[in-house]
């Protein structure tokens, strides 16, 4: 269930057989976070990539558990391509979500702070 002013994120990651990651908002501050092996991380580069449906289902189940536990809000799976090991969301909406507002470069974040890989818009 969602509110009319905050509809559910579009099910962009539901296509069978594609690579997917789990994204959500951290409850305490609303920041965009990605599900990694070590928990929810702000860095897109750390996101666990699910290849194929069984892995995606497991990722979704972990995300749903963490949402139920109050760690994150509105978890969704999003479709990605993997570029030199960096998951790059297919949809522009998710790429902007990973980077921050394109109109405020000073507020954008680095999706790969250690590796220096870029997410193209």
């Amino acid at each position, binding site marked *: 269930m969602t*509110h009319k002013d905050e509809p559910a*994120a579009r099910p962009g990651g539901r296509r069978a057989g594609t690579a997917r990651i789990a994204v959500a908002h951290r*409850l305490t501050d*609303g920041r965009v976070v990605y599900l990694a092996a070590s928990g929810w991380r702000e860095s897109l580069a750390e996101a666990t990539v699910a290849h194929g449906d069984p892995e995606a289902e497991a990722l979704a189940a972990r995300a749903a558990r963490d949402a139920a536990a109050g760690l994150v809000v509105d978890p969704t799976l999003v479709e990605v391509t993997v570029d030199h090991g960096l998951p790059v969301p297919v949809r*522009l*909406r998710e790429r*902007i979500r990973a980077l921050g507002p*394109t*109109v405020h470069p000073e507020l954008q974040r680095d999706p790969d702070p250690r590796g220096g890989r870029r997410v193209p818009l």
Partner: protein
Amino acid sequence: MYRYDAHDRELVRARVRQFADQVRRRLEGRLDEETFRRLRLLNGLYLQLHAYMLRVPIPYGTLRADQLRTLAEVAERFDRGYAHVTTRQNVQFHWIRLVDAPAVLERLAEADLAPIQACGNSIRNITSDPFAGVAPDEEVDPRPWCELLRQFLTLDPEVHFLPRKFKMAVIGARRDRAMIRAHDIGIRLWRDDGRVRAEVLAGGGLGRTPMLGQRLREDLPAEELLPYVRAILRTYNRFGRRDHLYRSRLKILVHDLGIERFRAVVEAEYAAGRDPELVDLGRRELARIARHFASPAHAVDAAAEEARLAADRRHDSAFDAFVATNVLRHRHPGHRAVVVTLKRPGAVPGDLDAAAMRLLADLAERHSFGEIRTTHEQDLVLPHVRAGALRALWAELAAAGLATPNWRRATDLVSCPGLDYCQLATARSIPVAQELARALAARGLDRELGELAIRISGCINACGQHHVGHIGVLGLEKRGREAYQITVGGSDAEDAALGTVLGPALSREEIVPALLRMLDLYRARRRDPRERFLDFVRRVGPAALREVIHAPTPARPARDPA
């Protein structure tokens, strides 16, 4: 300006305490998200694309200097140093942390600001003419009526679970500077032999299904507004669709019933439910509230002020250009209202950093009786400035980059946050606004194009009000890419009109060149420089522009990386 009394303050404080408790229980895991979501939305806190966003209603766009300073403080302490003025005269913060939200609300409450009914299916901020109490053509000051309606409709359980959100606007002049026909209820107050009357419109709204409001009553005695508005709301509560999101707004009910039947139902409800005590209460409250809106003291030598202004204009051409576009006549001789457009070409429309907020608060105190207004065009107004002080004010604004002489010119374009911030958006709108404004400024076209309202929305929900722009741009997603549809011929004024779509959407690369070609065509074919773009479109028809819109762009890249 209205100031909270002890009852108002206690009500808002109680609400803040209640919300702080709700946040605490959510963080402790004692409230689930679905339950909490409704509660935080009732307090103006959305979850947007990157973070929580807090919407702070500015009642009928009227703001005190100390309130603007408080907003600056919130921007610095709790956000990322800036705020955003919206197309409904509100202010938004895009980076509020949930853990800070109670402290933010507490700080806002200290300044008589409260995000109550900023969201949800309730009565939203009642908007008004930003030149209320100022404009020489005003018949009735709408602000006391807005405040009366605000108090009547705040936290009233009867209107707290409407079928959908509900927007109202009130004006008191023939010129419509608040877009009343694009609201669920639009009210124009006028005077008849000393008595205040109200023209009441219903069923307007933009969004997915844009419609202009239709007249319900032409000459309702204004003292009947409370029972009459309540009758409309009861009709909506009873017959509005709750089963279909896209058919739940009042405009759909008015459309489906037809204005005659809708009026008959409202009138029957009004006749049956009219409570004389409510009318008396409204009359007494209006008298109390109106005292807050007494015109500030304006004891000046008007002739000397005018002479000083005339001399200053002769002396400085840049100042003269600013006065020509951004300064309006005031009902009090020797005074002017000054529009500070938040639209320096290339800037994010409506964004304002904390330093600018503090400067404007200082300037308002020194030059405008401590008053600031927000406009639905995402600009600010200093409403009461002495004519002789304009040049000093302009110099300080110019030094801060806030004196762009472009009010209601092409570069004063309105844009919703779009896909850079918004969960609902399908395309970015701000970058289009920035690119277009830069291109227009580089060509020096602002002055030559004259009055031109460009409105850009990042999705069909139309927060950028593209339907009523002389030129409207609607951002869409087509096959995974941003695409933009152009409308022309809309108007948000007393000659309100919905724009006509000019064919299929264009790509991100095509949209700005297409708009520039269209404006070139207008410049080449207009009757004379006084013929506005809107009048030109009405004369030649939208079809004449379609061809130039869809001309091929030579520099179009082979592949759109977005």
